[in-house]
């Protein structure tokens, strides 16, 4: 049997089985879901050559296949989804409606794989909508004001979905084919207007999922209010489907426009990505809830990825896809860590939590590694992506974009620290005295992912290789890469191995000198036993600094934060309402008024008859 078909079949079947298994035992449902995803992962990685399959359904010919580009995303999706579903077994234990949850969880993984396998727009669209619906159903699973969040997500997804549908129909009417490859090859022969129209429509469709600036408003709440085991793939993987589509569009379609250069609005898209990065980072800084913080940070990180894709040089595309993979890993880990904290303590409010480092050390280590990668600090994988992005921006003369991205990634240090401090460091709280480490089944996926960040920081070449193949498939020509040395167009380079060696050596020497020698001689004291200027804090005295953590920074950026994008959408909505209100006044429901309209219409016809009819 064909492997692609088999994977989709296993996942779809697994989804249904997981739903049915709930009737037997709720736990079994999660396990079935995990087994289905893990076994399809095995099938995926055992696949040796690129297979394809043609299905005939209802007069349509659906083509599925796997190419080097979609293999990169496929490997990322299926391996991270396996870990997330393993984590989900423990995280969702004891929650109700597990069948419903696991059905949708497995279904969205199936839909993502389907999107990656699709070679024609019909199956692409079908899987795209399955993905949208299954994620929508999970957003409303928690029932926290589901009306508002779910509907907002649905409206934006619908805008994206319809634009895609429209673009597909236009494509079909022009070139009489639904194949993606045909669009790529025929794009240059279309008129400039059509190229622009199709381009904008597809860009809107993909930008919604990858949360680019004016279309991002659904993302923060949707990420924050879904169950964390799902958010780790929602933010980590579902958003990457938008990146996947943007990649195809920006690299292989727009580069074939008739006016030669890369599409004119890829500059606009790059700037939108950069502005998304800055604004979303600022919002992440002022959040007090850890989930919201991560959600805004996801939007910001996707902004960088869009910048890289839109610039469209070899290095920047490599950087963007590398960052997409890294973002999936570290943000997935962080959401899992928050989920673990939420499960063990019952809250994710950073003003209440504190000093969990001694209670949940493994969760802390996983979060620390991911945060280092998120902030782009050298030894870990996040740095590699950031470095390549900056180098590609500067070598392609985007001097102000580099400053924008740098502003947002420096401001990212603020929320990175806030996250670690708010949850794991700071004053010990009485409430959380008896908190225990999360179960091993949750810790193991987190630690595996955090470890992979370290590994890919040392040997980024293991990811460069498939990405380079994918980019060659998309028509970027020969892409050079090296296992441990990063280099830019000007011939400057960075050697990741030397960096790691240097850092590990010095940390090692200093830590042996300090830590090991001192560890036994020093005595652990509580966080109440500190320098307070001579006063001894009493038992109930509150020494926590957690509320308004970045107040000075908030004051400094106040002018930029006055208006939320939501404000404009709400105004737009009100405007539309007023318009319809006006329309309603015309239709008064009174026969007399209608008679007058008819008379007025005839009079107008009479007066202007010459201009109209002759």
């Amino acid at each position: 049997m064909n492997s692609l078909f088999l994977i989709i079949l296993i996942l779809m079947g697994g989804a249904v089985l997981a739903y049915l298994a709930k009737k037997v035992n709720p736990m079994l449902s999660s396990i079935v879901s995990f087994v289905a995803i893990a076994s399809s992962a095995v099938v995926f990685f055992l696949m040796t050559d690129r297979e394809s399959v043609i299905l005939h359904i209802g007069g349509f010919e659906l083509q599925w296949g796997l190419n080097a580009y979609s293999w990169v995303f496929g490997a990322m999706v299926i391996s991270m989804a396996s870990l997330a579903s393993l984590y989900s077994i423990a995280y969702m234990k004891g929650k109700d409606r597990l069948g419903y949850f696991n059905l949708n969880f497995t279904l969205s993984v199936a839909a993502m794989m389907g999107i990656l396998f699709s070679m024609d727009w019909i199956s692409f669209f079908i899987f795209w909508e399955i993905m949208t619906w299954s994620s929508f159903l999970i957003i409303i699973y928690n029932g926290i004001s589901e009306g508002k969040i779910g509907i907002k997500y649905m409206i934006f997804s619908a805008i994206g979905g319809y634009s895609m549908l429209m673009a597909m129909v236009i494509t079909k009417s022009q070139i009489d084919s639904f194949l993606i490859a045909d669009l790529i090859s025929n794009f240059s022969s279309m008129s400039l207007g059509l190229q622009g129209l199709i381009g904008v429509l597809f860009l809107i469709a993909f930008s919604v999922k990858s949360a680019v600036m004016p279309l991002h408003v659904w993302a923060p709440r949707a990420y924050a209010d879904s169950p964390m085991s799902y958010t780790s793939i929602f933010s980590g993987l579902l958003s990457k489907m938008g990146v996947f589509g943007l990649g195809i569009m920006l690299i292989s379609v727009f580069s074939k426009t008739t006016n030669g250069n890369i599409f004119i609005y890829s500059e606009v898209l790059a700037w939108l990505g950069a502005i998304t990065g800055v604004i979303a980072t600022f919002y992440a800084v002022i959040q007090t809830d850890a989930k919201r913080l991560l959600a805004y940070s996801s939007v910001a990180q996707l902004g960088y990825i869009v910048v890289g894709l839109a610039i469209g040089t070899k290095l920047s595309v490599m950087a963007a896809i590398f960052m997409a993979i890294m973002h999936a890993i570290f943000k997935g880990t962080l959401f899992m860590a928050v989920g673990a904290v939420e499960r063990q303590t019952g809250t994710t409010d950073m003003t209440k939590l504190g000093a969990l480092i001694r209670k949940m050390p493994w969760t802390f280590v996983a979060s620390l590694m991911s945060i280092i990668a998120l902030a782009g600090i050298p030894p870990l994988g996040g740095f590699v992506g950031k470095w390549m992005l900056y180098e590609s921006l500067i070598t392609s003369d985007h001097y102000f974009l580099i400053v924008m991205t740098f502003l947002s990634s420096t401001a990212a240090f603020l929320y990175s620290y806030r996250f670690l401090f708010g949850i794991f460091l700071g004053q010990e709280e009485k409430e959380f005295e008896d908190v225990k480490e999360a179960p091993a089944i949750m810790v193991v996926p987190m630690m595996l992912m955090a470890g992979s960040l370290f590994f890919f920081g040392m040997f980024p070449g293991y990811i460069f290789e498939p990405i380079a193949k994918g980019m060659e498939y998309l028509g970027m020509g020969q892409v050079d890469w090296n296992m441990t040395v990063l280099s830019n167009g000007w011939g400057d380079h960075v050697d990741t191995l030397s960096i790691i060696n240097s850092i590990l050596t010095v940390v090692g020497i200093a830590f042996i000198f300090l830590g090991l020698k001192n560890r036994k001689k020093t005595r652990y004291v509580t966080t109440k036993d500190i320098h307070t200027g001579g006063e001894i804090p009493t038992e109930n005295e509150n020494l926590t600094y957690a509320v308004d953590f970045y107040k000075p920074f908030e004051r400094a950026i106040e002018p930029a934060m006055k208006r939320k994008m939501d404000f404009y959408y709400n105004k737009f909505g009100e405007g539309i309402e007023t318009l319809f209100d006006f329309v309603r006044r015309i239709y008064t429901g009174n026969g007399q008024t209608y008679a007058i309209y008819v008379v007025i219409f005839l009079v107008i016809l009479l007066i202007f008859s010459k201009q109209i009819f002759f």
Partner: protein
Amino acid sequence: MDNSIWISILGFLATVVLAFTVGVFYGGFVRKITARIQNRVGPPVYQNFFDIVKLYSKKTAVNHGWMQHLAPALAITASVTSLMFIPILNGQGWIWFENLNFKGDLIFLLYMMVFGSLGMALGAGQTGNPHSAIGVSRGLSQMVGYEIPWVLALVAIMMQAHTTSITGLLEYQNANGTWMMFESPLAFIAALMAMLGMFHYAPFDVPFAPAELASGPASEFGGKYLALMMTSGSIFAFVKLVLIVDIFMGGASNLIMLVVKTFLLYMVPVLYGIVSPRYRTEQSIRYFWGWPTLIGVLGVLYVVFTR
């Protein structure tokens, strides 16, 4: 054993010792100069050296957990690793103990240089001292401020020389026979203004603010921890100075030139600081996002239009 390994280890040690000595004595000079301006006698210039030796010999009694143990180690890692990537002495085509000079570039250094502050911040966070947390929050906020003009300045000179590596910038200045500070003066001014923030002297000493925060993040660190942090701070001051000398002032070909250039450069934040009161954090951020950023933008535009 291979001979080159011993030479590189020797180079590593020599560089660290040089950076440490110069950094510590600069710290002493600053104390002396401050004292003279405030009409005091002041401690001898080698006082900081004595302080460090004394602190190293002290025993530490208490700790707040392993992140606190690790923090000074991370701080010194950032200083020493950054030092390894910066050419200390160089001339026409030669570099004194190249260490890892050819293995990294400016953008890497930008990130490497915040590594230590974040590590320190984590250690300070674990102690639970509210002063430390406030200090960290202020320090990180201010960093967002001064990094913007700093990056603008770096972008300008990287565009000018068409390279992102420090050795490349040195070669460019050697080949052209001028210093970067004369070729892109606006970028140099922006970098100089950003440097005021980087050195955390008044009016930008908000994170440590001795009068309000009891020296902020460092307040729970004593004994060996403090000694290691002072060492790291001295080396780091040297790193920042040599970096600016390298990329804007053509590097230095002998020790005397190195000391003269770095010392003159160091006096800018120090002398500006001694006579200034302290900003509030948001004032400090807004300061950096005002004139320095504008000058930085002009510097980039200048390079773009004259290149």
